[in-house]
């Protein structure tokens, strides 16, 4: 968010709505209407005085109306734009020409009631729709007691109630009497999977957020008793099942599988009544009930559709198809995020990058024609070389730090430290106005080192360093003391000690800052070519997108044909012809002038770094070298081959993919079929593999419905653990139930058993409703075998890209960097990342294509300044560093008679393993030299300095 606020090429238009779109793909004119803010964003310092004086109280919508704010306010302190805002509906001045208090008290003169609504006509080549999702209606919530019983709250409200910056500052209280609840129930599927409210689909995110909210509540109140009522537990995302299990165990969450309970109030308690799938009825009393509200289509979906000229699906989400999930029904207009269908953050982020690739394919001729390039002022080398003049800025982080640590005392303490030429406390040092102020102070006081005592450098260091660059200082002349995580948070109960520790950290940071030196920031040229590993649906999509964006692409496929697992599919879950999708993709790839397809080929070795890789590809014994700037892993996965269940012993036992091939042949394969039994989670979810394979549930209902088409009187049984037909696939699940497919739930400790008999086979399974084991004679047993990782170990070692415990490639960040990996310039998509359906694989492939194209577009990459430096005079050439480097970033070079180590700076990640193992201390790390670290340690040790510092002794 902050990044978007700082980008010179992103113009943020808030309080703005789209009025019309004219023209065609490549050249649209969009008319946008913008309401006035009545506060000049550039002048507002976000000091908050206007809110203090505003006499008009209004419900705080950001806090779900659980709190009161004023007509002039800011939603939250880190908001972008970091400017206050006047609600025109509530403001006395706007509505009645009375009051003018805010304007009179604003010392910055930012309040401007002369602002008028604006109409803008924007010339754009493409329009991306990302309006998000809407709220489930009040009438739906009322069915579950919301509005009638005070202590029934929505999940949005609960989110704010547990948030430290929320209306109760994170103290969990129930609305009726402000008492801390002891027993809470979460009800799932509110406004989801419910045809009575018009939302037949599954919202896909509520199971996860309920578990998260329950876990956070337990962190606040460890003695809480929490029950969650699920119809099915749908934690099908990558690593989500494992996270759910951990949360259940760690917090003792009580998971109940039942339809949504009935709710009544008895005195001050809420009485829930529910029926479990063994037919038993239960009831219990709770202090508070949280409704896990689903994601609805945006309220303005129809308006958007009319303006953009696109079609919606039956639930008012944007109409798309599994083969082209990000394309609307109109060329040049694309969609990403929850408007495309309910989805979580990683999926939204993936689609967001994916849609960027599609727009970039369309508009490549216009690329760069309207962008603004930022130039930084030259570094003031003379100032940098002067005696250190250190500025110390101590951040309140609102109450996050100042609620525990005495920030002003820490600030005053900093004044006593040597070389500190300026000191100040700031409310939120990361806010845009504070950054401006810091830059101003650094310039005014000719500071050449900056220490910020705030939060974590992991999240905020780049932001502050950017500020330094903008005023001509080398970003390495910066040091952070993390007094939030390491003081305010971990010592929340000991404010005095936390303050003392903050002083210690600031003293240490200042000691280090005195020795900081500027570090070079070189850039390297990029070879504008991509290498894509894997020629399945994901790999072909990536290659096509990168090539369509204008760059040469080499596509390497291990087998003799393109297509991968897509070759085995007949239909997609949304009923499209998978073979046609395959044919189209293969045709486009084969005839694309910028794509070089290498079949029967494998990556043998690779060297280099982002922008400059050299890979050896072997094709039937022959090898070829390819120079490329980026690389995408799209090597796929494979169908898990089941053990047991009489698979391979009886021709009547198939996998879902084998069944699909039989269905494709038509009725003949099912002439004598009476009973079909499908068994879910064969191999998955703890049987052999730990992960959930995500798509088998949808695949099973899809195939069950196909069998019903071919043979309507067939009895179909699906034996499952949780039906995970998330999103719009829920429609298929419901249709299957309506058409008589029987669903029987089993538990992992009582798995179904396939028994071969003299004639035919039977399946024994425990029927929970009857309370006894039943035996189903079957003509066909279909195993939903899930997805196993490919042979990833070799590639993982070759590229130094780590794998997850389940054997899939590990992304750089599960939420915010879902298609990048730990190694720069290498990207990831498809089944190599984890199990997923075609729709998700295509979105992810587009996302990988966008990320991979970024260095190709830029033509240059900046090299990390924190790299190892080897003092060749001291180096004895032992080679320990080179053998230990996990990034292949040290090479041994012959110099005269001896070998010496040399860092390949572009590959170096600055991990420091080499420096810590060098027997002669010849290696130092930029920004972390031995001298700097020793200075920090000395500053800490009591004998070294005590209250002052070592400099005081001098």
């Amino acid at each position, binding site marked *: 968010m902050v990044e978007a606020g700082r980008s010179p090429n992103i113009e943020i238009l808030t309080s703005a709505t789209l009025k019309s779109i004219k023209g065609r793909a490549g050249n649209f004119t969009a008319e946008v209407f913008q309401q006035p803010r009545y506060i000049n964003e550039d002048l507002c310092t976000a000091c908050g005085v206007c809110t203090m004086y505003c006499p008009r109280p209004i419900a705080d919508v950001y806090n779900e109306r659980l709190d009161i704010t004023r007509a002039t306010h800011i939603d939250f302190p880190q908001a972008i734009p970091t400017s206050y805002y006047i609600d025109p509906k509530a403001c006395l001045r706007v509505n009645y020409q009375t009051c003018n208090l805010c304007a009179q008290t604003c010392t910055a003169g930012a309040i401007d009631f002369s602002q008028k609504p604006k109409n803008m006509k924007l010339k754009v080549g493409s329009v991306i729709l990302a309006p998000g999702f809407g709220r489930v209606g009040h009438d739906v919530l009322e069915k579950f007691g919301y509005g009638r019983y005070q202590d029934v709250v929505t999940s949005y409200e609960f989110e704010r109630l547990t948030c430290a910056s929320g209306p109760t500052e994170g103290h969990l209280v129930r609305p009726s009497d402000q008492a801390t609840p002891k027993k809470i129930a979460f009800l799932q599927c509110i406004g989801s999977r419910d045809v009575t409210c018009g939302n037949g689909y599954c919202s896909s995110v509520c199971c996860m957020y309920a578990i998260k909210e329950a876990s956070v509540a337990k962190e606040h109140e460890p003695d809480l008793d929490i029950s969650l009522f699920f119809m099915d537990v749908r934690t099908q995302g990558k690593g989500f099942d494992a996270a759910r299990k951990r949360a259940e165990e760690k917090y003792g969450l009580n998971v109940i599988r039942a339809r949504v309970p009935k709710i009544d109030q008895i005195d001050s308690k809420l009485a829930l009544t529910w029926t479990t799938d063994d037919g038993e009825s239960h009831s219990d009393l709770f202090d508070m009930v949280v409704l896990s509200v689903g994601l609805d289509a945006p309220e303005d979906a129809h308006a958007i559709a009319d303006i953009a000229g696109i079609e919606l699906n039956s639930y008012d989400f944007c109409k798309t198809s599994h083969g082209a999930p990000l394309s609307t029904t109109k060329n040049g207009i694309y969609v990403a*995020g929850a408007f495309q269908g309910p989805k979580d953050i990683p999926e939204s982020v993936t689609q967001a990058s994916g849609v960027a690739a599609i727009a970039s394919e369309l508009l490549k001729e216009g690329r760069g024609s309207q962008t603004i390039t930022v130039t930084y002022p030259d570094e003031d080398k003379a100032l940098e070389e002067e005696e250190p003049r250190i500025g110390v800025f101590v951040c309140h982080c609102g109450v996050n730090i100042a609620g525990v640590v005495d920030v002003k005392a820490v600030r005053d303490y900093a004044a006593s430290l040597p070389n500190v030429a300026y000191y100040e406390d700031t409310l939120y040092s990361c806010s845009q106005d504070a950054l401006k102020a810091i830059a101003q102070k650094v310039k005014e006081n000719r500071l050449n080192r900056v220490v910020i005592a705030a939060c974590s450098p992991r999240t905020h260091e780049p932001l502050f360093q950017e500020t330094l660059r903008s005023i001509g200082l080398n970003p390495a002349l910066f040091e952070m003391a993390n007094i939030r995580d390491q003081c305010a948070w971990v010592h929340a109960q000991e404010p005095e000690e936390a303050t003392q520790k903050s002083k210690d950290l600031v003293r240490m940071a200042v000691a280090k800052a005195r020795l900081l030196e500027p570090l070079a920031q070189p850039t390297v040229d990029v070879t504008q070519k991509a290498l894509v590993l894997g020629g399945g649906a994901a790999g072909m999509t990536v290659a096509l997108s990168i090539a369509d964006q204008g760059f040469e692409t080499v596509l390497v496929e291990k087998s003799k044909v393109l297509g991968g697992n897509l070759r085995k599919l007949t239909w997609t879950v949304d009923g499209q012809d998978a073979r046609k999708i395959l044919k189209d993709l293969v045709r486009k790839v084969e005839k694309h002038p910028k794509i070089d397809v290498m079949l029967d080929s494998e990556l043998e070795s690779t060297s280099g770094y982002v922008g400059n890789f050299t890979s050896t590809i072997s094709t039937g014994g022959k090898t070829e070298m390819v120079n490329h700037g980026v690389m995408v892993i799209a090597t796929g996965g494979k169908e898990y081959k089941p053990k047991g269940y009489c698979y391979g012993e009886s021709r009547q036992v198939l996998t879902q993919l084998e069944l699909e091939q039989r269905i494709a042949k038509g009725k003949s394969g099912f002439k004598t079929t009476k009973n079909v039994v499908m068994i879910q989670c064969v191999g998955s979810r703890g049987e052999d593999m730990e992960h959930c394979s995500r798509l088998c549930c949808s695949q099973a209902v899809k195939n069950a419905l196909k069998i019903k088409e071919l043979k309507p009187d067939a009895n179909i049984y699906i034996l499952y653990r949780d039906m995970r037909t998330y999103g719009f696939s829920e429609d298929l699940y419901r249709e299957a139930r309506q058409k008589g497919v029987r669903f029987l739930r089993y538990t992992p400790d009582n798995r179904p058993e396939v028994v071969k008999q003299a004639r035919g086979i039977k399946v024994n399974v425990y029927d929970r409703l009857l309370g006894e084991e039943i035996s189903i004679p079957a003509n066909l047993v279909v195993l939903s075998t899930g997805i196993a990782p490919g042979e990833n170990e070799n590639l993982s070692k070759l590229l130094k890209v780590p794998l997850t415990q389940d054997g899939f490639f590990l992304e750089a960040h599960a939420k915010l960097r879902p298609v990048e990996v730990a190694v720069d310039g290498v990207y990831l998509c498809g089944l190599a990342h984890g199990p997923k359906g075609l729709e998700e694989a295509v979105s992810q492939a587009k996302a990988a294509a966008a990320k991979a194209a970024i260095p190709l577009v830029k033509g240059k990459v900046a090299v990390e300044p924190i790299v190892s430096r080897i003092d060749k005079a001291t180096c004895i050439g032992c080679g320990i560093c080179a053998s230990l480097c996990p990034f292949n970033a040290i090479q041994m070079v012959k110099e005269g008679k001896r070998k010496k180590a040399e860092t390949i700076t572009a590959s170096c990640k600055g991990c420091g393993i080499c420096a810590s193992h060098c027997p002669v201390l010849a290696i130092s790390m930029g920004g972390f030299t031995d001298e700097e670290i020793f200075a920090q340690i000395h500053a800490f040790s009591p004998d070294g300095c005590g209250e002052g510092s070592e400099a005081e002794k001098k």
Partner: protein
Amino acid sequence: MSKAGAIMVLGGGIAGVQTALDLADLGYYVYLVEKKPYIGGVMAQLDKTFPTNDCAI
């Protein structure tokens, strides 16, 4: 007629913001149109995120 080098993104939630960032990195000028007075969408209202409990802001 040559194609425009600017793109409009409607919606300033996590999807819109990420799209805008990537498009800017890919060499396009972006208009990020948000109906509310602030960007961030629903994600800015979340305290923590599943499963890593990272801060949402």
